């Protein structure tokens, strides 16, 4: 068994059940009432965090850091729920969590925060994050952070990480047509963009939450303010899709009739 230093990058995104409306801005678009929208921890980053917790539990002496870039006030709200799920040390960065910011700039901020972690041992580092965010949905930030940290092994869309007896790391990455690419890396450091993984969402643990919040609140207080934008990008249009369909509702109809219609449609 090894002891790892697991750094999870993850921030907040609007709750997926919210209707979002874009607004034009001087440099980049934003969301209407962005600061008022309820938020959640980015879903794939959340899976990365749960996988990290599971790995830390199995490997005594491991430690988890959650590096999170977002507006300080919103991060504090978010941490009230996230802190009840798993144990971690928060490294908060006060800045925009908008999907319209540039991953190149975001990665610079994240890498700088990771480098500032005291006694960070690259030979034990597992850099985790989501395979993409539910905001920008680009799937590139983790590679850029890895490049800035000099990590040469990266795995995208990972559902499973197995620590072998000899210390090697085996990854299962999602590839096309419902298959996994299975690869083995000799040792850390590695960077991983997690998919949904294999674990259920941990139940809330208020005691853990209270313990975590003792570290979370000071971390939020000393969060460095940064400016992330989208330099060099010109957004000419941002629009919501208008996909309201005229749904024909077929009810009180014999199953045979429905099946006949379905078969004709599917075969047409």
């Amino acid at each position, binding site marked *: 068994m090894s002891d790892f230093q697991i750094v999870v990058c993850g921030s907040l*995104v609007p709750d997926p059940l919210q209707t979002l409306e874009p607004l034009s801005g001087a440099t980049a678009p934003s969301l209407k009432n962005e600061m008022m929208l309820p938020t959640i921890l980015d879903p794939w980053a959340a899976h990365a965090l749960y996988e990290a917790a599971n790995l830390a539990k199995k490997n005594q002496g491991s430690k988890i850091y959650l590096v999170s870039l977002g507006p300080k006030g919103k991060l504090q709200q978010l941490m009230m729920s996230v802190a009840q799920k798993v144990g971690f040390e928060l490294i908060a960065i006060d800045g925009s969590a908008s999907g319209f910011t540039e991953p190149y700039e975001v990665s610079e901020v994240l890498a700088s925060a990771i480098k500032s972690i005291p006694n960070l041992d690259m030979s034990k580092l597992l850099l985790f994050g989501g395979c993409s965010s539910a*905001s920008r949905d680009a*799937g590139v930030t983790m590679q850029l952070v890895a490049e800035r940290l000099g990590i040469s092994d990266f795995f995208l869309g990972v559902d499973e990480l197995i620590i072998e007896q000899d210390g090697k790391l085996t990854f299962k990455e999602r590839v096309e047509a*419902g298959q996994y690419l299975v690869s083995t890396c000799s040792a850390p450091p590695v960077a991983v963009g997690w998919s949904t993984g294999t*674990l259920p969402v941990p139940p809330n643990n208020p005691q853990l939450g209270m313990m975590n919040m003792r570290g979370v609140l000071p971390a939020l207080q000393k969060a460095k303010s940064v400016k992330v934008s989208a330099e060099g990008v010109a957004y000419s249009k941002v629009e919501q899709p208008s996909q309201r369909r005229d749904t024909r509702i077929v009810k*009180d109809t014999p199953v045979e009739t429905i099946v006949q219609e379905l078969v004709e449609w599917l075969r047409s």
Partner: protein
Amino acid sequence: MEKLLLLLHTEDDGSLRRQSLEALTSAKETAEKIGADFYLGIVGNGAKKSTELIGNCGAKSFAVLEGNDFSAPRYSTDKSAALALIKHFAATVVIAPNTSRWARALPGATFQAGGRIDTRVTGIATDGGIQIQRWYYRQRMLATLSRTQRPWVILIESGIFKAWEKVSVQVNVEEVSAELKPEMKRTESKGYENASGGEQTIKPDAPILFVAGAGYMKKQSDGKTHVKEAEELIKKFLKLSGASLGSSKSLVEAASEGAEVISIMTHMNQVGQTGSTPRHQKGLSTCCHGEEPHVIGWRFINERRAVNTDPNCGWAQGKTDVLYVADAFEVMTKLNEKWGQKWGQA
């Protein structure tokens, strides 16, 4: 003037996938519209031979990187190979298919080349320079944007452009080499495995997407659950129709919550907010009730029909073309019977 590089990779057997041929169409059209020189670079097993398959594409020159180190997908070596080709052609715009292999490696190559990257691009316009379209917030808003930084790497989604019609023509091909440091070989590919451990249920090229929802797990009209029966119905329909299988989040997560499950269902089948957004001509949804997250999974399904027992379900209202208010078990049983009698297996 822009120098446009189309960057492709071969499959394990040396072939080029359909998505690569679609990217070829997009690159050629874009280059013609903006008056750019168009170059072609291919990485992977049999790359040199594969250039002949698309020798009719009109690229100004061709270059490849092949050999054992570039056969299997691996971040470090794929990144180096892509970087070598970008540098070789001094490309200012790079178009590539948004495959898992390039989605993994090209962000790193772009970083090393000092450029910027856009992934999951769903359209390219050329009025007054290149502008791309891509979705934000998981298919909830569509943006059109341009960039000043170069090289600009653009990963094209599948199903956007028509696939290039291959005509074999022999062409001159340059062989390029990439710098490979020992630490770039720390990762070793062990091959592929099916996510479901059995039958292949995810078929990106299938015309039909069949989505099963959590309703299959619930108690039916007789007060009992019929999960195994549901599994057989679904398997039979997939076999007969050749459809690709999708699922709602709640159905795939039932497995990790210890409930009786449909064994062929994994997270890979999941569509929606934290799942995939597949592209198929037709979609048939059964026993699904999610609204906004579900719509996200169906954003690129052209014709949509649904079978469920609730006429007021949010998914039905304005999202699907036809909603059949009926028991999905009954409908699927009869549908399989009818299909089998009339056409047999797809």
